[in-house]
């Protein structure tokens, strides 16, 4: 209970910090929009091509923007030594980590909620009848992204060139999530508009495995 309360308090702090300026959220949405628009300049897709390649574009935009968004999670704690303060606080290290994971999940989900309708308008992809299942896929994929992204943010916070290092560490790691999320989204956008259960299970499995690994290794992250 104490850990849950600590997580909630820290999560509320992260939200308060972000919603005061909304700079991270704004930058993430704008960056993703740029990728989505640039894709149309680079490829000029037909409606059929949009349905076929659109899911890949959408997820690449989320992954690139997400990997930039999670970077400040721990990097900004180095200013004024707030990271040391968090370490010395009588809260479990996993509470600190999970608060940041939840905060990143919230911010990225807000960005996705804005971007998916925009994408469907720009690329003429209908979301009618698949919204619920699409949300499930988005949530599972985003959870995988923010769990590993937040952990790697903690790792790279102490390294030189951290802004470049984090995407280098994170993006190859997320390849299975990208493949699974894109495959599921393609089958949702396709003519059959069905949910591929194998990939959904794979995504859920990935999230569980790496959440467990984060929980087990959180003390070492705090010490680093």
């Amino acid at each position, binding site marked *: 209970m104490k850990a849950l309360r600590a997580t909630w308090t820290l999560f509320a702090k992260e939200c308060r910090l972000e919603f005061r300026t909304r700079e991270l959220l704004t930058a993430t949405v704008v960056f993703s929009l740029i990728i989505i628009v640039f894709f149309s300049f680079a490829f000029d897709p037909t409606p059929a091509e949009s349905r076929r390649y659109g899911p890949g574009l959408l997820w690449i935009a989320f992954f690139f923007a997400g990997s930039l968004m999670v970077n400040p999670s721990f990097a900004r704690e180095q200013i004024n030594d707030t990271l040391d303060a968090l370490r010395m606080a009588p809260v479990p290290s996993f509470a600190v980590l999970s608060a940041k994971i939840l905060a990143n999940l919230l911010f990225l989900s807000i960005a996705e909620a804005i971007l998916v309708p925009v994408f469907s308008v720009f690329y003429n992809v209908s979301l009618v009848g698949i919204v619920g299942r699409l949300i499930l896929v988005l949530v599972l994929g985003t959870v995988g992204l923010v769990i590993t992204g937040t952990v790697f943010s903690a790792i790279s916070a102490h390294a030189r060139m951290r802004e470049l290092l984090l995407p280098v*560490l994170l993006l190859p790691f997320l390849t299975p999530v990208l493949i699974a999320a894109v495959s599921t989204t393609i089958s949702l956008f396709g003519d059959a508009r069905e949910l591929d259960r194998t990939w959904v299970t794979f995504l859920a499995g990935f999230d569980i495995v790496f959440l467990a690994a984060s929980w087990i290794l959180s003390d070492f992250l705090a010490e680093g």
Partner: protein
Amino acid sequence: MKARIPITLLVAALVFFGGFAGLFIAPDEATMHEIQRIFYFHVPLWTAMTLALSISCFSCIAWLVSRRATFDLLAVAGAEVGVLCCTGGLITGMLWGKPVWGIWWTWDARLTSTFVLWLLYISYLLLRELIEDPHRRATLSAVFGVFAYLDLPIVLLSTTLWRTQHPQPVLFGGPKSINHTMLMVFLLCMVAIVGVMILILIDRYRLERLRFELDELRVEIESREMDAQQLPAKQAVPGKELPAKGTA
């Protein structure tokens, strides 16, 4: 290490005879004929890679549990040698793929996952280069090393989950269709390549161990220089006595 010379000669002999056996003694394969012989180098390279990366992951965990420097040094040695074997495996795979499939590369599940694994361990090595504090470097790279190793089962899983152009496994999980002579040659090449990997791993570990000693020497020299530069203890501030040695 005097035993290294006969061992090195033994492995060199195995490597030579393994290569000779693979190229000239093993029987011709029914569908791919000559080019199939790359199998005798390609598969042992993957085995050597898996072993090296397993040693690296085990060492990462052992470091996190015990904090003994040996394990940190072994972790980086294993990762680097694993990347080396992975590079060899990817190149031999391409040299196999071009005559058989007509293309150097295809983004099928197994090749993609293996390339991702290569990228992951390159980033592990990059991470180690970019963290300066030794203790922090050891701890954080150990955490990342454990995460990266968890990707290995996903590589193996990928051949069953995804459709793939890659030849189906012959020895493990596939139909038992290997000829006896082929099996003997394959085992010989396996022993040779894994043997070479172990020797290189030992040398790479030695290099890390020497670097560690070098760092310790530098720290000792610096601390002696700092001690020598401190003001003599007899110099006192007027009106205030310095505490005697050994008192609070």
